[in-house]
C-alpha cells in the first residue's frame, strides 16, 4: 500500500463516518423544521469534521501502517502513472458530481423544500470526492 492509496482510503472512511452521522441525523429528525441557514451551519460543521478526520486519519494511518511494515510510509513524488491515475479518477469524480447535481434538480423541480438544495450542494461534491477516491484505489490495484 502506497501513501496515496492510504490517503484515498482515509478519505473514503471520512465520507462514510460523516455521511453516516448526517444520515442518522436525517432519519432521527434532527433537521425537521430547520431552515436553510441552520442546515447550512450543520453541513459546514460536517465539512470541518471531514477535514479534521482526513488530517487526523492520515496521521494515525501513517503511524499504524509504518508500525506494521516496520518501515516509514512516506509520500513519493508523483510519476507518470500517478498522474494518469489521478486524471482518470478525477474525471470519474467530476462525472459523479455533475450527475448528483443534475439529479438534485429533479425533486426541487417537483416542489421539494429549499432545504433539500442545501443538502444537494453538500452531497454532490462529497459524492464526487468519494468516487474519485474509490477509483484511485481501483486504478492503483488494476492499472
Amino acid at each position, binding site marked *: 500500500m502506497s501513501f496515496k492509496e492510504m490517503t484515498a482510503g482515509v478519505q473514503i472512511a471520512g465520507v462514510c463516518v460523516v455521511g453516516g452521522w448526517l444520515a442518522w441525523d436525517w432519519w432521527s429528525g434532527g433537521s425537521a423544521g430547520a431552515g436553510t441557514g441552520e442546515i447550512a451551519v450543520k453541513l459546514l460543521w460536517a465539512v470541518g469534521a471531514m477535514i479534521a478526520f482526513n488530517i487526523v486519519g492520515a496521521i494515525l494511518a501513517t503511524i499504524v501502517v509504518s508500525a506494521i511494515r516496520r518501515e516509514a510510509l512516506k509520500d513519493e513524488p508523483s510519476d*507518470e502513472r500517478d498522474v494518469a491515475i489521478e486524471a482518470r479518477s478525477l474525471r470519474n469524480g467530476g462525472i459523479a458530481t455533475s450527475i448528483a447535481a443534475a439529479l438534485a434538480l429533479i425533486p426541487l423541480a417537483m416542489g421539494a423544500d429549499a432545504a433539500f438544495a442545501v443538502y444537494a450542494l453538500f452531497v454532490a461534491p462529497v459524492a464526487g470526492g468519494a468516487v474519485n477516491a474509490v477509483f484511485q484505489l481501483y486504478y492503483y490495484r488494476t492499472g
Partner: protein
Amino acid sequence: MAKGRSGITNTIRTLRFHAGEMTQAALAEKVGVTRQTIVAIEQGRYSPSLDVAFRIAAVFGVPLEAVFQWAPPGQGEG
C-alpha cells in the same frame, strides 16, 4: 515473462535477475518512478510511456526490444 492486456510483454524480472538481482526499488530509483510503478509494469498491469520504457532499457544497457515485446492479440496463445 509478464503479459499485459495490450499484448505487450516484458522481461524486466529476468533482466533484474541478470543485473545481480536488482531490487524493484533500485530500478525505480534509477528510472525515476515509484516502486509501485515498476511493480505494475513488471506484472503487465501498466504500459509505460516511451520515455520510461527507454530509461528502463538504458538502465540494463539493452535495446528497447530486449525489454518490451508486442504481439497482436491472440498470437502466441493456446
